[in-house]
């Protein structure tokens, strides 16, 4: 256990001074900053009616932005950048001659990547709250300082958004191992993004099986499909977990048997 923690800690050290860190920091700040800008520029339309908590609008706008435009591509880019550190520096051959099992190497990379994504949410939450209160201070008419946000809802959105991202994390982890040129997995993500928009516009029921749609489905479930819940998880989040398991097994098999340094 101590060994795997050490190996994971080296993954963080390897990512030091790379764009992956900036992506997490800037990424966590971008959507709250963008929504704040919208609130400040369109504030007259957003002044809440009597008894309405303005944080509900702030939450809805932020989480839809996060789910639609942002979260799938952020996850894809982060995954590609993370694995590209070894590809770009041609360091796999060094990693494989260290006295650590390939299993450790695989799981430490996957764990570190998941921790990076969790770190994004850890940064996102205080930045989002800070931005909301700052907007409230600048424009008191918006009453963001009068009310408080629903913190439990915020945590729940972040948790479900993370679960909904797991499918594409595993798919792109596998793709990034298979293709050393990161343009290929990114192009696949762009193509899948277009397919998702087409499925959404076409009000297709198959959207429930398409992992690139899961983040948005979490914050805004498609109204043409009956939402099936399994405990705390909607159906598409369970599918996301299933995709994660299947593609993690695939990438692990590939890494252990065929991956060449």
């Amino acid at each position, binding site marked *: 256990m101590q060994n795997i923690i050490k190996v994971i800690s080296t993954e963080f050290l390897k990512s030091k*001074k790379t764009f992956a860190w900036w992506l997490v920091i800037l990424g966590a700040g971008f959507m709250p900053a963008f929504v704040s800008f919208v609130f400040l520029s369109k504030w007259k339309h957003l002044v809440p009616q009597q008894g309405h908590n303005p944080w509900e609008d702030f939450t809805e706008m932020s989480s839809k932005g996060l789910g639609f435009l942002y979260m799938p591509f952020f996850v894809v880019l982060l995954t590609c950048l993370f694995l590209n550190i070894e590809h770009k520096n041609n360091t796999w051959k060094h990693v*494989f*001659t*260290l006295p650590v099992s390939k299993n450790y190497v695989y799981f430490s990379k996957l764990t570190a990547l998941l921790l990076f994504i969790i770190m994004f949410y850890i940064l996102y939450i205080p930045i989002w709250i800070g931005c909301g209160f700052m907007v409230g201070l600048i424009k008191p008419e918006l009453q963001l300082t009068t009310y408080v946000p629903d913190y439990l809802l915020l945590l729940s959105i972040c948790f479900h958004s993370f679960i909904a991202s797991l499918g594409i994390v595993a798919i792109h982890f596998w793709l990034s191992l298979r293709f050393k040129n990161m343009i290929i997995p990114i192009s696949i993500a762009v193509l899948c993004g277009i397919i998702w928009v087409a499925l959404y516009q076409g009000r297709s029921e198959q959207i429930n099986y398409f992992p690139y749609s899961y983040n948005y489905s979490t914050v805004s479930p498609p109204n043409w499909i009956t939402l099936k819940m399994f405990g705390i998880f909607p159906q598409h989040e369970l599918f996301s977990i299933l995709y994660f398991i299947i593609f993690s097994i695939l990438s692990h098999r590939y890494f252990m048997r065929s991956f060449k340094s």
Partner: protein
Amino acid sequence: MTLIETQNLDFSFNKGEAVLKGINLNVKEGSIYGFLGPNGSGKTTTIRLLLGLLPSKKDKIKLFGQNLQADRISIFSKIGSLIEQPSLYEHLSGFDNLEITRRIRNASKNRIDKVLQLVDLKPASQRKVREYSLGMKQRLGLAIALITEPELVILDEPVNGLDPNGIIEIRELLLKLNKENGITIFLSSHLLSEIEKIVTHVGVLSKGEMVFQGRYNDLKELQNNSATIHIETSDNQKSLDMLARKYPSTFSENSHIGLRYQNKEQIATICRILVESSIDVYRMQVVDKDLENIFLEITKN
């Protein structure tokens, strides 16, 4: 004790032509083993097999007497390696590169300072590796290989691309590690002249086959055996006829005749034979073949 041992090691990338054919490596503890061969002879493939970077058949490779496939982690904890160009995280400092390997190999923190001093990189340790020269990168690669005081260091072309000063620095460092720390060194090169000053043992690879393996002195013995005497006289044909009776190896070449050199007394005898036959001797010269030529001949044949 034999640290590296391969038995009839074969390898081919596709089902076609074999890259390695029946290699039997034998590297003894405490030696500096020069693994020589022209480019494309299979040196890097052999090293990648030794380090488990390419798949090999069971029981073909033993390091420290242990089977590579069965005891990979135990073996790698005693080995430092540098394969082709050093594997470095160029966006990080030299110190951070060392720290990554130190953590995984469980070396103590003060080892970083020690190896940085050893390879003379301490002043540049906080600079990003992408700002390093090739020589500095090679030295950092070596420092990474030495972070845990390994018993065996495997280096693939460690002086490739270095200037003469860089080559001398690396050579001296390797010699020091072998003499003072007792580290066994296995290093490959395509130029004998780059490593002949430090190696104790040599293996020569040509077209995937081991064409020579032994002590460096054995290779030098080959050099001595291939020395010839060139003689230019007033009548080369007559001299050839006379000397061929005593020395069957005598041959004629351009403006001189030649025969295999045995010892200095032989020169006096030849002189006497020719002078007594009233032949004027214009030139007698012992011509050594340098090791580079012997190496080329071995690999050519």
